[in-house]
Every structure is written in structure tokens, then in C-alpha cells.
């Protein structure tokens, strides 16, 4: 985990920070969602506690912790308690594998009476060389908390919700996997960092020994995989059980789905997991199709050069550049999070059979078609 104490600490802190940021993003997202919903529905939303109702978040957190701890008599204790804890895992594991910024090169420096370094840090929890595979593997585990919760509650509505939810997740995983295949075809790698680096620079096509550069557009994946991007987005909605795909918690039929029996903090943990999925999905969207942490029109080297114009320390420049890119990444992710929220309050819910039909009979064939089209075009233009 690193060669010396400094590196180990930084890496560990990175992981913890990413996780904690994810956790703490949730209240703000909830606030955003409530305000956004109110805005869409021409209401005000929470606005009493603190400025713009922002302190509502803190109040909610406190309330969650102090809520009564409640376990139904029929519940299976281990499952019942385990489910919310494990609900946190897939999203955080996946999030930690995503590249959030460029690599920071630290040249040797003096501190505490000894020389440290040189180090190479990436703004990323850990760099899994087959990043996509890791993310897919992690998110494929997301079914279990749902099943555990459904089974552990000892409630038939929970069980129904869980089965529905897991069926839905696995169904859309296929379309998602196929959509990602298009991306892999284009970039020829599983590594997320390499993907992001490949999207650097202006958009340039090369076909039949003839290349064309459109300097006003960035070299983003969306221009190569427009259908794939749309399919991925739709599948991501289903994967994170968001409207219009939130069938597992269709309250008209199933009370509240698999978390019917949950309340207080346990419920909150499920929420964190769900929003975590949303964040991961948005981040993947950005990485695959929207240039990741890259700022359109400006390469990371240019940023570093620009910064070194008025900052002496090379290390400071690197860190600052990294943070700027992290900021760019966050902005892009937030745009997608807003799309998630906006869609939730704009579209009605599917019926369950419609949902399955959409997944198997529409998205799967489309994703396949997209894949074949991509492959054929790639072979043809060579």
C-alpha cells in the first residue's frame, strides 16, 4: 500500500475521504432533490431551517440517529442488520476505483527532518488496472443487500420488493454491459485512466487514411457512442432503482418495497447506497462519454504550465492542478446528478411488465445493434 508511512497515510486518507464525501454528499443531494422537486412542482421545499433550509440536513441526520431502533419480530436479525451495512459497500468500492483527477507527481521534499519521495499519487481510491471490470463486479454485488433486506424483514411485501428489485437490476445489467462494450471497443482498454487520457484533445476522426479534426469539440466518447451513451444512462437509472424505474418501492403495490420494515438510520444507510449508485453512475457516464476530469479545450499539461506561471513550488502546482481537474469532474458529475433528479420528477413510473419488456426487448437488442454497428464501422473504416 505504499513504500513508506507518508504514502500509506495519503492513500488510506484518500480512500476514507472518498467514502466520507460520498456519505456526506447524500444529505446535500437529498436537500437538492427536495428543493428541486419543489421547484419543479412550483412549491418552496424545505426552507425554514437555516439559510435556504440548508441546516435541514443536519437536523435530519440527528433525527435519524435518535430514532427508535426497531426490529420486527419475524425478522432474521443478521440479515436485517446486515443488509443496510452491505448496501454501502458496492457503491463505495466502485467509487474508489474511478479516476477523479489526473496523476499528481510529487518530487522529493523535506519534512520532519528527512527527505520524502518522490511519489506518484492518483486522485483515485485505487487504480484497478481493469477498472471497468472492477466497477461492474462491485456493482453486480448490489443485488445482495436488497435480497438480504427483503428476506430478512420477514415481510412478504419486502420479499416481493426485493425480488422485483433484483430482477430489475440484473435485467438492466445486461444492457449496461453491452453499452459499455461499445466504449471498450472504441478505446480498446478496460482501464478507466487510459480511457480518460484518450479523450484528451480536439475531436478527430480518421477513416480510410483520411483524418479530420474538429477543433471546437472535445474528443469525447459521446461523439463516438451516442446510442451507447443514451442506453447507458437509461440502464444506470434502472440500476440505481430511480424513477422511472423505482418499481421495487412502488408504494401503491408494495408499500415501500424491500425497505418496508426499515426506519431511522438503517433506512438512511440504504439511501446512502442508492445515492452512491447514482454518483457512481454519473461518474461513469462522465468518464466514458464526457472526458472524465478533462477540461474541454485545455489539456492537463496546459493547466500545469499556466499554474506554474505564478506558483513556484512544483508540488503545489501539481496538487492544485489535480484539484482543478477534480473540480471539473465534480461539475460534470453534478450536472448528471441534476439530470437524475430532474428525470425523477418529470417522468411517470413504468409498470413492471413494461419495465422488463423495455429492458429485454428494447434495450438489449438496441445495445447489441449498437455494438455490432460499432464493430462493423471500425472494421470498415480501417
Amino acid at each position, binding site marked *: 500500500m505504499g513504500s513508506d508511512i507518508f504514502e500509506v497515510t495519503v492513500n488510506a486518507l484518500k480512500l476514507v475521504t472518498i467514502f466520507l464525501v460520498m456519505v456526506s454528499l447524500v444529505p446535500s443531494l437529498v436537500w437538492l432533490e427536495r428543493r428541486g422537486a419543489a421547484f419543479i412542482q412550483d412549491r418552496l421545499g424545505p426552507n425554514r431551517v437555516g439559510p435556504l433550509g440548508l441546516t435541514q440536513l443536519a437536523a435530519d441526520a440527528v433525527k435519524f440517529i435518535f430514532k427508535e431502533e426497531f426490529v420486527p419480530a419475524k425478522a432474521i436479525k443478521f440479515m436485517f442488520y446486515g443488509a443496510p*451495512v452491505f448496501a454501502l459497500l458496492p457503491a463505495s468500492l466502485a467509487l474508489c476505483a474511478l479516476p477523479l483527477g489526473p496523476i499528481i507527481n510529487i518530487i522529493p521534499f523535506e519534512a520532519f527532518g528527512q527527505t520524502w519521495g518522490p511519489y506518484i499519487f492518483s486522485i483515485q481510491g*485505487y487504480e484497478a*488496472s481493469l477498472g471497468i471490470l472492477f466497477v461492474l463486479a462491485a456493482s453486480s454485488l448490489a443485488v445482495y443487500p436488497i435480497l438480504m433486506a427483503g428476506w430478512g424483514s*420477514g415481510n412478504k411485501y419486502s420479499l416481493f420488493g426485493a425480488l422485483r428489485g433484483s430482477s430489475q437490476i440484473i435485467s438492466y445489467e445486461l444492457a449496461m454491459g453491452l453499452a459499455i462494450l461499445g466504449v471498450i*471497443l472504441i478505446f480498446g482498454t478496460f482501464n478507466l485512466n487510459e480511457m480518460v487520457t484518450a479523450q484528451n484533445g480536439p475531436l478527430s476522426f480518421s477513416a480510410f487514411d483520411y483524418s479530420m479534426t474538429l477543433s471546437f469539440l472535445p474528443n469525447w466518447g459521446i461523439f463516438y457512442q451516442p446510442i451507447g451513451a443514451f442506453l447507458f444512462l437509461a440502464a444506470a437509472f434502472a440500476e440505481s432503482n430511480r424513477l422511472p424505474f423505482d418499481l421495487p418501492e412502488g408504494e401503491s403495490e408494495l408499500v415501500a418495497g424491500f425497505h418496508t420494515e426499515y426506519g431511522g438510520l438503517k433506512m438512511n444507510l440504504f439511501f446512502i447506497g442508492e445515492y452512491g449508485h447514482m454518483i457512481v453512475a454519473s461518474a461513469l457516464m462522465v468518464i466514458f462519454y464526457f472526458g472524465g476530469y478533462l477540461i474541454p479545450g485545455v489539456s492537463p499539461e496546459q493547466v500545469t504550465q499556466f499554474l506554474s506561471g505564478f506558483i513556484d513550488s512544483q508540488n503545489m502546482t501539481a496538487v492544485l492542478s489535480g484539484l482543478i481537474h477534480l473540480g471539473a469532474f465534480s461539475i460534470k458529475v453534478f450536472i448528471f446528478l441534476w439530470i437524475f433528479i430532474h428525470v425523477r420528477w418529470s417522468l411517470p413510473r413504468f409498470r413492471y*411488465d413494461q419495465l422488463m419488456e423495455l429492458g*429485454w426487448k428494447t434495450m438489449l437488442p438496441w445495445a447489441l445493434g449498437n455494438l455490432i454497428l460499432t464493430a462493423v464501422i471500425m472494421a470498415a473504416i480501417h
Partner: protein
Amino acid sequence: MGGCVPLYAVIFITIFVTLFGALLLFAASKVGKVYKDKVKDETYECGIAVQDKVDTKISIKFYLTAILFIIFDIEIIFMYPWAATYKEFIASGNGLYSLGAMGIFMGVFIFGLWWEIKSKALEWE
């Protein structure tokens, strides 16, 4: 041991997250008050008298969906190494071979999908 960093990190974050959640739950259970009540302990079914058995008729469809998912998932997994090497194959002039090999496989895949759709295995009434 550069290659092991992710493994360490993954194990670390797994344990950390699990502990975080567990501790949070533990803390919450200690902080809040608990009022035990027979009716409260019952399964929540919107206030209607509880139907005792959880064992109700669960549609075989869920299971069928899962089994089809396994099969298609593996077929998609098989496409991953292909997608990763496709560029290389094209560069070495064997793009059509690779496309053909996968074309046959995909033909089988599409046939399977078509058959499932046609045989109404994917129908949810």
C-alpha cells in the same frame, strides 16, 4: 508489490465501510429509546390483519429471468476480451477474422434472444 495496492486498498475500504456502518448502527441502537409492543412487532402490512405466511405464490418468472440473465451475462462477458483485443486485430489486419468469430457467437446470442422473445419466455403478464 505495486500490483497488490488495489487488493490492500480494496480490503481496507471494505473493512472500513463495514465497520462504519456497523458502528453507526450500534451507536444508533444505544442512543435511541426502545418501546417494545406486541402489535408494533408485527409485520407491517398497511394495518390490515397480518396474513401469517410469508410463503406466498412467487412467480416463477423471477427465477427464469435470473437464469436467462446468467446465460446472457456470460455471453456478454465473453465479448469483453474480444472488445479489448478488437483494435489489435484490426491493426494486424485480422479485423475481419475477429469480427467473423464474434459474428458467429453473436449470431447464436441473437438467435437465443430472438427465441426467448418468440417463445414468450420474457413475457410478464
